């Protein structure tokens, strides 16, 4: 099963995804974060919230592109969702494959560990202590995941727990399934 997923993702990445220069992408994202920090006068809690909101708006749209590109059907379990997100989603949009790990006993929580983060190339957080304690530089990813998953009827709580930019040993995002939003049967279709 995982070989097929990987092969599918590699094929889509190679043949069906238009590429742009990665430095341009990194610099663009960097300038967004830096501008937000200036606009909010280094209130990093606000900056995190803005990045998440931006990400959410991206995620609710990106999921349509994802489904059209991959032609995938509904996932049968949250575990399958995790595999698809990491091996296909991250692969075709960022060309990285985070590790799926730290599953909770009930199968409703897992972590994505990113060994490389294209958003944060060349980035060093400002030297003042506040940034490295409060800012989640790549928080847009949190919003993207939340928005995308909400559109496929999964309400998921997403948050960064570690970031190498802050001096942690890894970059880790935690996802917790809150509930499956039930499909509403359209009236008259009983």
């Amino acid at each position, binding site marked *: 099963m995982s070989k097929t997923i990987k092969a599918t993702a590699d094929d889509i990445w190679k043949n069906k995804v238009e590429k742009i220069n990665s*430095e341009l992408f*990194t*610099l663009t994202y*960097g*300038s967004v*974060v*830096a501008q937000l*920090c200036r606009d909010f006068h280094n209130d990093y809690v606000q900056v995190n919230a803005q990045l998440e909101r931006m990400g959410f708006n991206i995620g609710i749209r990106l999921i349509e592109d994802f489904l059209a590109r991959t032609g995938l059907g509904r996932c049968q379990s949250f575990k399958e969702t995790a595999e698809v997100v990491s091996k296909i989603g991250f692969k075709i949009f960022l060309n990285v494959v985070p590790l799926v790990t730290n599953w909770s006993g009930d199968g409703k929580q897992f972590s994505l560990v990113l060994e490389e983060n294209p958003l944060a*190339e*060349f*980035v*060093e*957080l*400002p030297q003042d202590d506040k*940034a490295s304690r409060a800012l989640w530089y790549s928080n847009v990813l949190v919003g993207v995941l939340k928005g995308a998953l909400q559109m496929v009827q999964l309400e998921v709580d997403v948050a960064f727990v570690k970031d190498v930019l802050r001096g942690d040993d890894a970059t880790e995002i935690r996802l917790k399934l809150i509930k499956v939003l039930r499909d509403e049967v359209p009236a008259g279709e009983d």
Partner: protein
Amino acid sequence: DSPSDLTQDSPANGLLKYNFLSHMALDSFLLPFYDSQKGSSLFFIQDSIAVYGYETNTGLKIVVGTSTRDSVGEALRPVFQQIHKVYIRLMCNPFQSITDEQTLSDNKRMQSSIMGIVDTWNNAQ
């Protein structure tokens, strides 16, 4: 145009000497014989240190001094390019101010990268 010095000597005399050499080098960039198209040029030799300079279109000037006896202008070109890359890496940090010269020389990663380039060059000689 005020130089950010990264020197390996800490004694005061050494610092003064490098400060003096870097100011002389900055003046050399303005001289008519300096041709930025050629890559690095030998500016002068003072106190048995040969000083080479390199300027980019954005006005970034890199100055390297070496005590090697032979003329090493061509061989230094990769060194200038590596230093330039280190600078570019620093500039790509969105939180790095381009105009704040103090933070340029305070940045530890940049310092250690440049020391690394210097050590590699010294070991190859």
